[in-house]
């Protein structure tokens, strides 16, 4: 027998929209603080785990440190990766590449061959 569940989730953007946004210009800071402090589901879940005895502050501290290290490491790995091959520009526009894109790829390869310094980081193939 199939049981169906519906989850309706209300969300609230507690932070700014972007780094160039200052959202206190269009909403009260008290509103943002209230959501951040008393409504944050992650914080509430942590407190519940702590009350159950399955989590504690030391574990929290250790986890934050190791998670941060993992992310920083992943960034270092990613930064050293080569950019994707030039051919990737022209695939997945359609399922099958049409002739105009084949032509444009040839023209682009010629441009990159002639001006390699203008396109650093892209594999020369």
């Amino acid at each position, binding site marked *: 027998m199939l049981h169906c569940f519906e989850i309706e989730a209300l969300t609230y953007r507690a932070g700014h*929209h*972007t780094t*160039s*946004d200052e959202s206190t*210009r*269009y909403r009260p800071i008290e509103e943002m603080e209230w959501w951040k402090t008393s409504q944050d589901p992650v914080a509430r879940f942590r407190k519940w785990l702590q009350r159950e005895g399955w989590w504690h502050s030391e574990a929290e501290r250790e986890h934050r440190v190791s998670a941060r290290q993992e992310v920083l490491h992943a960034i270092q790995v990613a930064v050293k990766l080569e*950019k*994707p091959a*030039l051919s*990737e*520009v*022209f695939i997945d*526009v359609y399922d099958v590449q049409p002739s*105009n*894109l084949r032509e*444009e790829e040839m023209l*682009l390869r010629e*441009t*990159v061959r*002639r*001006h390699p310094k*203008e*396109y650093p980081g*892209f594999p020369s193939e």
Partner: protein
Amino acid sequence: MAVALRRFGRLGGSCIGSCFRGISSDCVKPINLYTAINQALHIALETDPRAYIFGEDVGFGGVFRCTTGLADHFGKHRGIVGFAVGLAAMGNRAICEIQFADYIFPAFDQIVNEAAKFRYRSGNQFNCGGLTVRAPYGAVGHGGHYHSQSPEAFFCHVPGIKVVIPRSPQQAKGLLLSCIRDANPTVFFEPKWLYRLAVEDVPEKDYMVPLSEAEVIREGNDITLVGWGAQLSIMEQACNEAEKDGISCELIDLKTLIPWDKETVEVSVNKTGRLLISHEAPVTGGFGAEISASIVERCFLRLEAPVCRVCGLDTPFPLVFESLYLPTKNKVLDAIKSTIGY
């Protein structure tokens, strides 16, 4: 970046004489593109009690700060294109902002089927000429699929509206005021790349730059280049390099894409015999195709080489591949040389 700023100083300086019709020594201040647009909007609201500005986030200044201070000064307002059409139809000046041109498409129906046809379908009994839709467009270095698009070609295919694109702060202020005051609905695309980057002397007073008049911003004899918006700066760099090889380039800023100034381009191509058009938007079906077709019709026997288009690729605007996608200075320069050498 310093080079880009100087370049814009030069571009601005070359057209001040032609634009100001004899008033040469007014108060000017060096300002950037979003400040010039902000000034134009301020003037529009000041000089017309029936002018309204609206769009997402314009109340607090907008994500590019083009509408900073206006709500404090003039009071608040909300709503976008359909609302703007109605407001304009009642004789008001509705100046609405779409936060990024990439997001203008939900409003396309209102622009094409309502705004553009209002006068025609009513036999001139009604019109929504007071409508101006502003939107930031174009590459910004990291915008990816949805913060980099140049959708001007879609709008150039719509009789009944005007499409205008400024190249610099001084041009933007004058062209925007012309769009706002024009008796036809207009779409005004602002090159977001230049919002902060481009700085030039802009007169503080109320002035207008005429629509449907292209401008020769650099004279030359060997080849005509036509472009608009931020791409002109790239083309200017290519022209400077070509000059070192003895190629004399004439560069034209189209400014208004529809209705466009064919005569200025025709006169230039009749002089040079060669035409190169460059735009960020994808080459297929881009507005360069219309310019090419029209000029070939008018100048066929004069042309020394096929009309050349140096444009974006026929793919969605990419993120990591942006530098490969765009019509860079080198692509333009290579095309100038191969056109000359045809």
